[in-house]
């Protein structure tokens, strides 16, 4: 087949066509594009998520789905902020996108719904663990101090997931790429490794609620945990042995955690998703 031509992402919806400097594209998933930009002041960083309309589907269905999903994500974020769960706060939102009632017109297929979120500083947990595993491999052993540090870090991951579930929300795509370690003091994230130690202090913030839903069912909670467990298995072979600490941190974070953990055993047994991850 012909190689793809140089890809140019579609233009940004209003009002971001006014933005100077233009938002920087960070990632492009199947559903959404994520940009870094600012909000309200030129020095306040923010994350912009755009859900472009999908020209393959019927315009009525497209509007319905785009709107439903951006709202679902926004509602989850707003709720979690109210409950004090560490997630990026919802700052602004447009579920219509460019389209109905837009005085400025605009071609179909351009634009889409968007939401602006608080910018979370720090490294994704996947990178923190990769750095830590590299260090451990280089040294050939895990010292008692290092083991306690990583165990504590894992418990804090469990605490954050527990806080999420406690608030009645399930994530839907819980991997170590969707967790950010927000350093206790800003600006320390990048300058790690040099002193031969990987910083694991700080708060574990949950991100990307694109597949999240409001649910308090043990099954949904258990699937969240199972997906996270599988992600550790496939991505962090040296850290997997400490995953029990994640579950420990989870257990101590809310009362109904016990039944969700019980359900996790069933989900593991079923293993329906066994071949799907990685």
């Amino acid at each position, binding site marked *: *087949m012909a190689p793809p031509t140089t890809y140019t992402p579609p233009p940004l919806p209003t009002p971001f066509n006014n933005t100077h400097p233009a938002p920087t594209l960070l990632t492009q998933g199947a559903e959404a594009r994520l940009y870094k930009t600012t909000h309200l002041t030129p020095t306040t960083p923010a994350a912009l998520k755009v859900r472009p309309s999908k020209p*393959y589907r019927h315009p009525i*269905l497209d509007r*319905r789905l785009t709107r439903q999903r951006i709202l679902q994500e926004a509602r989850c974020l707003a709720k979690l902020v109210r409950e004090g769960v560490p997630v990026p706060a919802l700052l602004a939102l447009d579920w219509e996108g460019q389209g109905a009632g837009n005085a400025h017109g605009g071609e179909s297929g351009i634009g889409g719904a968007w939401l602006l979120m608080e910018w979370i500083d720090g490294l994704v947990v996947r990178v923190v663990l990769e750095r830590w595993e590299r260090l451990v491999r280089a040294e050939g052993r895990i010292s008692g101090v290092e083991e306690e540090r990583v165990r504590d870090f894992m418990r804090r991951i469990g605490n954050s997931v527990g806080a999420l579930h406690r608030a009645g929300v399930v994530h839907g795509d819980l991997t170590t790429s969707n967790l950010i370690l927000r350093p206790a003091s800003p600006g320390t994230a990048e300058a790690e490794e040099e002193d031969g130690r990987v910083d694991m202090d700080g708060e574990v913030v949950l991100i990307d609620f694109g597949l999240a839903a409001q649910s308090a069912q043990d099954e949904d909670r258990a699937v969240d945990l199972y997906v996270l467990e599988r992600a550790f298995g496939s991505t962090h072979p040296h850290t997997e042995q400490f995953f029990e600490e994640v579950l420990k941190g989870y257990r101590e974070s809310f009362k109904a955690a016990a039944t969700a953990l019980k359900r996790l055993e069933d989900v593991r047994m079923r293993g329906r998703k066994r*071949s*799907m991850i990685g």
Partner: protein
Amino acid sequence: MIAIGLEGSANKLGVGIMLHPNDGSTPQVLANIRHTYVSPPGEGFLPKDTARHHRSWVVKLVRKALKEARLSVQDVDCICYTKGPGMGAPLQSVAVAARMLSLLWGKELVGVNHCVGHIEMGRLITGSTNPVVLYVSGGNTQVIAYSSQRYRIFGETLDIAVGNCLDRFARTLHISNDPAPGYNIEQLAKKGTQLVELPYTVKGMDCSFSGILAAIDGLAATYGLGGKEEEIATPPVTTPAVDATGENGNGSITTKPTRADLCFSLQETIFSMLVETTERAMAHVGSTEVLIVGGVGCNERLQEMMGIMARDRGGSVHATDERFCIDNGIMIAQAGLLAYKTGFRTPLKESTCTQRFRTDDVFVKWRD
């Protein structure tokens, strides 16, 4: 090397003969014959009737295939048959036929996974090397990508297959099953203009279709559109918006939908779900190519929608026509021969069949 392939996991009985030239040049289809058991409108095909159909046709089809390929029995290297997944009784009748030929001719057996057959045939015909595969038929709905010796299932239906959803709605409308219910729905959908709101159930890369079927069956009943067409009076009356999902959406209908509108809406909804989950898998594995296989893959609207999605990702869609999309014997011969060449054999005492046989259970030794 030459393989004969026998397929009968559903209502199609297929016999195909595939040649893989020893010089490594492009494989050739020497014969590809099919006979379909067609049930009357409003009815599905039952396992025992389908099995009887396969039993009474299999010898005729094998003879015809050999004749068409201008081959004698001695030229054949192995006998490939569908081990599963599929309907028990039809699978069994074809497995018995394969065993009988194996003993009669003294040729070795190769049991083939039906889904892998579709994938390998699609790859061969389209030349697509490493696509994300959407496998959609009356019995299966899977989003598949290859990784280290397995066709891994990234997403699948959580209840009924997409083709089953279409077939059963065709029954509700008493649409003919000849040549296929899905084909007739597709033709009717072309006349549809109005989108009625239906549930849309995607969970990550998985889909669910049973709720949609219940909703559209309900709409057909509400508007008196079920049953035979000639019995239905269709004056365009304005009725209050009916909302199948109980949601308040912009898509609510304002005038009474027609049978065509329902077919159109069903297709638009379920195909959007398929394209969405396929796109998610493509993003996940970083692929830009899609291959659609299985009977529903013949649908031109599905191909069109998939094409738009793939184009927007800087890639392309590959699909085959009804000769290869719909169940056939040649795909079993193709996948079987690939395995046979790596030394794979199915001993007689293991030449069983199974209704459940996951795509990712097959060790794909013939790929890197």
